[in-house]
């Protein structure tokens, strides 16, 4: 929507500005969320500082990964309701994580969750591939099928475990930031994947713009549509999978952040990709800060996924009233 050409200089400047904004938000979240000024002893402040750093790093990595994944899937599936878990990844990673935590190994649970995500990717690919092509419609259907299956499987696990474990499963499925026990290697991996994903999607951004105008148009303008679809699908699913392995299935970040950015910046994916990286991180950091402040005020812990879900309802109302009024013209 801006008439300015996208030059290298403008791109670099806006990316740096986005990074700076995220850093400011993160720093505020660390200090304010942990009330760093209020601790009596240095050892306590040190502990809380590292806890906050870990939590803000988790929120940033997961928020960035989910926002990028949601943006890519909305472009791939040409569907404004697409979000990172629409292709069954949260179910696959979640079921694997739950089973591993309960029965196999607590330490390996995140790795098993990623394996579950990859298995889901392979399954969706196998189901959705028709005549050698991946089409948005069949991808969506395959995702619906797998989500139904995984939902049933998780329900089964919930039904057969002991009562005290049921509650733990339910709480984990809401999605929480922060853990007892440092997870720096896992956080680092997710952050690295988020940045790598951002870089990959930056190179695919031109293609995302073009496929929005139609598959034939994109192909004629030099986009290898099939290759774009496969790469996007795998990368977006992997980002969603590692996010679930780290923080559980936090919902609505991958849906809301891309849409809000589109309202602010426009539909051009070349601008949206770097924005999604930093805005997604900042959004989840702020949500986590809100959860932290709530916990401090009421002595009741609320998972971050609950807060993001509470944003979902009003957001959908907004979407309904603005976007759907625009004609989705297909001549």
């Amino acid at each position, binding site marked *: 929507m801006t008439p300015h050409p996208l030059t290298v200089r403008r791109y670099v400047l806006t990316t740096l500005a986005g990074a700076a904004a995220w850093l400011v938000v993160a720093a505020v979240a660390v200090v304010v969320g942990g009330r760093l000024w209020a601790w009596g002893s240095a050892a306590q402040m040190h502990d809380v500082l590292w806890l906050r750093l870990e939590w803000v790093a988790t929120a940033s990595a997961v928020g960035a990964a989910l926002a990028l994944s949601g943006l890519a899937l909305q472009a791939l599936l040409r569907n404004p309701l697409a979000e990172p878990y629409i292709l069954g990844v949260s179910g696959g990673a979640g079921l694997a994580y739950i089973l591993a935590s309960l029965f196999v190994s607590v330490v390996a649970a995140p790795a098993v969750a990623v394996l579950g995500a990859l298995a889901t990717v392979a399954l969706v690919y196998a189901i959705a591939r028709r005549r050698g092509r991946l089409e948005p419609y069949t991808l969506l259907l395959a995702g619906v099928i797998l989500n139904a299956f995984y939902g049933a499987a998780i329900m089964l696990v919930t039904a057969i475990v002991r009562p005290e474990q049921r509650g733990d499963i339910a709480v984990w499925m809401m999605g929480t930031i922060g853990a007892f026990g440092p997870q720096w290697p896992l956080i680092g991996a997710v952050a690295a994947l988020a940045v790598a994903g951002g870089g990959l999607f930056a190179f695919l951004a031109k293609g995302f713009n073009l496929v929005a*105008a139609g598959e034939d148009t994109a192909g004629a*303008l030099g986009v290898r549509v099939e290759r774009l679809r496969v790469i996007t699908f795998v990368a977006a699913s992997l980002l969603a999978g590692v996010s679930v392995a780290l923080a559980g299935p936090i919902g609505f970040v991958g849906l809301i952040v891309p849409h809000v950015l589109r309202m602010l910046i426009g539909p051009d994916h070349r601008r949206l990709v770097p924005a999604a990286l930093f805005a997604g991180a900042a959004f989840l950091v702020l949500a986590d800060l809100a959860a932290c402040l709530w916990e401090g005020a009421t002595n009741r812990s609320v998972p971050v996924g609950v807060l993001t879900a509470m944003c979902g309802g009003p957001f959908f109302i907004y979407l309904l009233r603005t976007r759907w009024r625009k004609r989705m*013209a297909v*001549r």
Partner: protein
Amino acid sequence: MAETDGRAMTPIRRDGKMPPGDAEMPRGGSPHPPRNEHQRPRRDSSLAPLAQNDNAKRGGYGDPPRTSPTDPPRTNPPAEPPRANAPYIEAEGLCFAYTAGEPVLAGLSMTACAGRLTCVLGPNGSGKTTLLRVLARLLVPSGGSVRLAGRPLEAYRRADLARRVAYVPQETLAGAGFTVMETVLMGRSPHTGALGFESEADWQAAESALSLTETARFAGRDLADLSGGERQRVIVARALAQDPALVLLDEPTAFLDIRHQHSIYGLLTHLVREQGRTVIAVSHDLNLAGAYADDLVLLARGAVAAAGPPEAVIRPEVLEPVYETPVEVRRDETTGRPLVLPRPPG
């Protein structure tokens, strides 16, 4: 009954290929092959000045009209500019089927030459759109081959192909919220880098494409807010911005009023005459195609039924078996081009 002109009729070859050399055409790449005056529209072949006169009269257009016809800057001239009237794209024996057992193209062979406007005609389901998609390499034929500037189509990398060939589809999705300017700039994407940054030259190309299709005043508006016809012209502008050597258009005037229909075909004529590009346009409108085309290709059931200049193809004995409806062909007194008047029975 069509009155033949004084020129010897070019024999129609069943396989649709043009004869290797029209004896009357000069060699040497002159952009203006001599033609019988009757075949030429009496107006100027380049429509741009006419459009500007309209602009000046009408006023209120966003951009001030330019005083001379502006062509998109040749930012990427093809390595070997195609010789006028030399075949630029040749299809041989194309076979294609979307579902097994139902062939849409069955042994189709045709040629389009540089500097000439070729129109593809045919009844519904005769494979016109499929032919264009095969030529644009959006579909891979199961049999036959396509050669572009002498090289097989599959030898081109997709990016190279996108710099040479522009495809204007019949339908376009417009829900994403892109403005007209952004849409036309998408046409520059084969020329921009990996991250898609645009240069000043890209912007100029887009702007001149907009003015050529008379859509400059929509530049800031959302594509979805335009009418069907306006959107169609923007899509043509996008193809122009691509600076292609070959333009493939699938019914570019389907939703346009008569003024814009002739404006677009005039623009296509300008592209072939003034800029030496190759244009293949699918059309449903026999008269429009007959009025502007240099060559016509008539398809029937996935193969070429007739090919040649309009007066050779637009004849009752050629059209009636293909369209399965009686027609009468007259000659337009003013332009000398054939006119088709359907005479449905009863």
